[in-house]
């Protein structure tokens, strides 16, 4: 199933953007879409600034889920190459927590597939984030279905 054309991983380190773009580059591609998910600055009710995010995964489940998502994207669009990487552990606000790169023959396919993948990650994949505030306190984010 074109496994060599998919790079899917969960990593405790900064996400390798340049390597991801090189990976999806191909003479069969007419467009590449890269999505980087970052986190905005924010204040909590106590007036503390958001300082970082801690991401936790259930990796034995989340990694197969990402692989299933990649296959679902391939079944809907003619993807040439794709990368799905999620970071775990402490992520500074300025650094991406998730990276998606899709190369496809026509640009609209890469836009549609990358958007599908990030929407599905946020809805279904066994990964959680905890907001870490400037006073050291933390808040797990567990969106209720109605707030998603």
């Amino acid at each position, binding site marked *: 199933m074109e496994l060599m054309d998919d790079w899917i991983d969960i990593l405790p380190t900064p996400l390798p953007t340049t390597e991801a773009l090189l990976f999806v580059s191909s003479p069969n591609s007419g467009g590449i879409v890269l999505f980087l998910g970052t986190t905005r600055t924010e204040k909590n009710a106590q007036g503390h600034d958001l300082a970082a995010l801690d991401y936790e995964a*259930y990796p034995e*489940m989340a990694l197969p889920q990402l692989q299933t998502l990649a296959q679902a994207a391939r079944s809907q669009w003619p993807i040439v190459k794709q990368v799905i990487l*999620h970071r775990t552990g402490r992520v500074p606000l300025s650094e991406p*927590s998730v990276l998606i790169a899709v190369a496809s023959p026509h640009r609209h396919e890469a836009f549609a597939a990358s958007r599908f993948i990030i929407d599905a990650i*946020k*809805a*279904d994949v*066994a990964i959680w984030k905890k907001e870490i505030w400037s006073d050291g306190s933390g808040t797990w984010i*567990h969106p209720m279905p109605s707030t998603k």
Partner: protein
Amino acid sequence: MHITIRLFANLRDRAGLSEIGLDLPEKSTIAHAIEQLRLRLPTLADHLNHIAFALNRSYTQSNTPLQDGDELALIPPVSGG
């Protein structure tokens, strides 16, 4: 039978544990395991209402029967990305 329950995120923080073993009668379901867990870790009780269940790494319903050696993960609402 013996199963392993895995805890993540707010559940893991509250329990102070990422994994717990449970001995259950034969023919127990996921719902039975959750009742046992409420007794063993009352601090989790308030946080077990909105979770999903993954049995051996696949989502499933609470009426699913368990087997010896199963890994049951409690999945609070996800927030990756």
